[in-house]
């Protein structure tokens, strides 16, 4: 085992402080807006901290580390694309400004304002399915990282996963967004320190020259040129760029930070500054993966190589800081995701099967119950499911299942007067088809006819999804203007 007494002390103090703080903040939750969007009182720095902490989980380190191990420096392109996409959304206010101005708490809520309650139900179902599937592998990857770094090995995976989940559920279920914002701030500080510790340890043991030599020897040109790398290419670049814009504007856990901001102007600034951190968010762990390639050589388990490196090079005492940082990263991500998906299933799915919304107290109660059920599902799913291809593409594809249709619906809903219900249904359903087909068919590629093999290419499935959704919105709306006249939205509400 790599973990010493000092490491245990740091980790336990951190865990106890997190849970105590998260539960203590519960007293500030006075109503539904307090629970879901922290009363819409979050300012710029706190908004950036909570957004970065949400989007940086241990799973992020693992899939980017894996990317560095198998693709070398080429993987850096992902960070640049994400930075461009999120900063552009922040600078322009594309979608997020309009959503925040209307005071919605979840994205499907906008569908009801602009289209109908049934569109909200369909959109909510897709968002919930894509979101929970997306989150399904978090626990497993986080468990792998922590087990390897601490030196427990794969045998402790289930135990580590269960403990992490229980701790997060304790405060998320009770304190909602208030607990998330407050604990995220502390977790942001810890995860930044953890990342710094890991990066310094990496450069102490492995020089840039060694990394360059290892990438050149193992991967050749594909290790430095993303367009020459068979994992990437132009299809990947275009898909990830569009997908990052869509995820930036419409991925409920992230967008909820904009919806919690004290004004639309602050929401834009939060996105812009957070976007600037997104190149580092990807490049820092990708280089850890490249370092693992230089340290161990090829042939290690791709997901476990980088965590194993950390366990080997980070000294006792600092390892506790790194693990506290990893736990911080995981917990902040789980909490935001649990709240996002439980809010969506309660307000946009269950409530939308009725003509009117539930009273506020019932909504909060149902959201808490849903968060508990989702937590149990995640534990079972994470232990059972074998992830296709690399984790990064799995995560983007499950996200695309929802974001492609949502991009069509919300962008057209905000900026195109002729968008109507038929266009919205078409965009949502067509956007979900190719990612769902990929997830179902990828494991049986050999029995598929040749002309269907394109659907098992993750990059093509992802990109096609956005084209189909856009096509569905435009054609669906244009051919049905008479039978389904577009709804004119009520005046904008600033809350």
């Amino acid at each position, binding site marked *: 085992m790599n973990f010493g007494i000092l490491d245990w002390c740091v980790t336990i103090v951190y865990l106890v402080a997190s849970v105590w703080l998260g539960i203590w903040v519960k007293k500030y939750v006075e109503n539904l807006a307090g629970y879901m969007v922290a009363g819409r009182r979050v300012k710029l720095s706190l908004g950036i*901290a909570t957004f970065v902490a949400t989007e940086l989980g241990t799973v992020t380190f693992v899939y980017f580390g894996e990317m560095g191990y198998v693709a070398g420096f080429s993987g*850096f392109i992902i*960070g640049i694309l994400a930075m461009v996409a999120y900063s552009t959304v922040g600078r322009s206010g594309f979608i997020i400004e309009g959503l925040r101005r209307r005071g919605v708490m979840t994205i499907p809520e906008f569908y009801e304002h602009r289209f109908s309650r049934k569109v909200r139900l369909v959109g909510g179902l897709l968002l919930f399915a894509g979101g929970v599937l997306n989150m399904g592998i978090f626990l497993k990857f986080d468990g792998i990282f922590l087990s390897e770094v601490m030196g427990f090995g794969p045998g402790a995976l289930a135990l580590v996963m269960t403990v992490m989940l229980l701790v997060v559920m304790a405060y998320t279920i009770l304190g909602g967004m208030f607990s998330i*914002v407050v604990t995220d701030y502390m977790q942001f500080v810890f995860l930044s320190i953890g990342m710094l510790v890991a990066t310094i340890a990496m450069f102490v043991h492995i020089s840039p020259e060694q990394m360059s030599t290892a990438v050149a020897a193992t991967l050749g040109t594909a*290790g430095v040129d993303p367009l020459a790398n068979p994992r990437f290419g132009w299809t990947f670049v275009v898909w990830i760029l569009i997908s990052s814009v869509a995820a930036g504007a419409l991925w409920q856990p992230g967008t909820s930070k904009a919806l919690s901001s004290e004004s639309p102007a602050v929401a834009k600034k939060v996105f812009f500054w957070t976007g600037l951190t997104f*190149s*580092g968010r990807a*490049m820092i762990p990708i280089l850890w993966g490249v370092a693992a390639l230089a340290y161990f050589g090829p042939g290690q388990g791709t997901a476990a190589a980088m965590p194993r490196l950390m366990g080997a090079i980070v000294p006792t005492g600092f390892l506790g800081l790194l693990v506290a940082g990893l736990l911080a990263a995981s917990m902040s991500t789980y909490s935001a995701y649990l709240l996002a998906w439980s809010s969506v299933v309660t307000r946009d799915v269950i409530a939308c099967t009725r003509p009117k919304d539930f009273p506020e107290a019932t909504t909060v109660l149902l959201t808490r119950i849903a968060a508990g059920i989702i937590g149990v599902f995640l534990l079972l799913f994470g232990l059972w499911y074998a992830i296709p291809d690399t984790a990064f593409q799995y995560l983007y594809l499950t996200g695309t299942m929802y974001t492609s249709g949502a991009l069509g619906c919300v962008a057209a809903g905000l900026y195109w007067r002729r968008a109507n219900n038929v266009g919205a249904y078409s965009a949502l359903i067509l956007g979900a088809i190719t990612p769902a087909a990929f997830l179902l068919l990828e494991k049986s590629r050999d029995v598929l006819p040749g002309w269907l093999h394109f659907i098992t290419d993750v990059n093509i499935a992802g990109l096609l999804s956005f084209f189909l959704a856009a096509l569905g919105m435009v054609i669906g709306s244009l051919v049905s203007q008479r039978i389904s006249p577009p709804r004119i939205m009520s005046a904008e509400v600033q809350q």
Partner: protein
Amino acid sequence: MTEGALTWFILYGVATLLFFGIAVVVAIRGIGELKDLLKR
């Protein structure tokens, strides 16, 4: 070191400075905002 690797290392340096720079500013300013948020 190859030319491609050197280019990526320069971009990596900029991205890392940006990440930790913003982290320091946010950590310092965030304390005050946290106090504001928790005022009743």
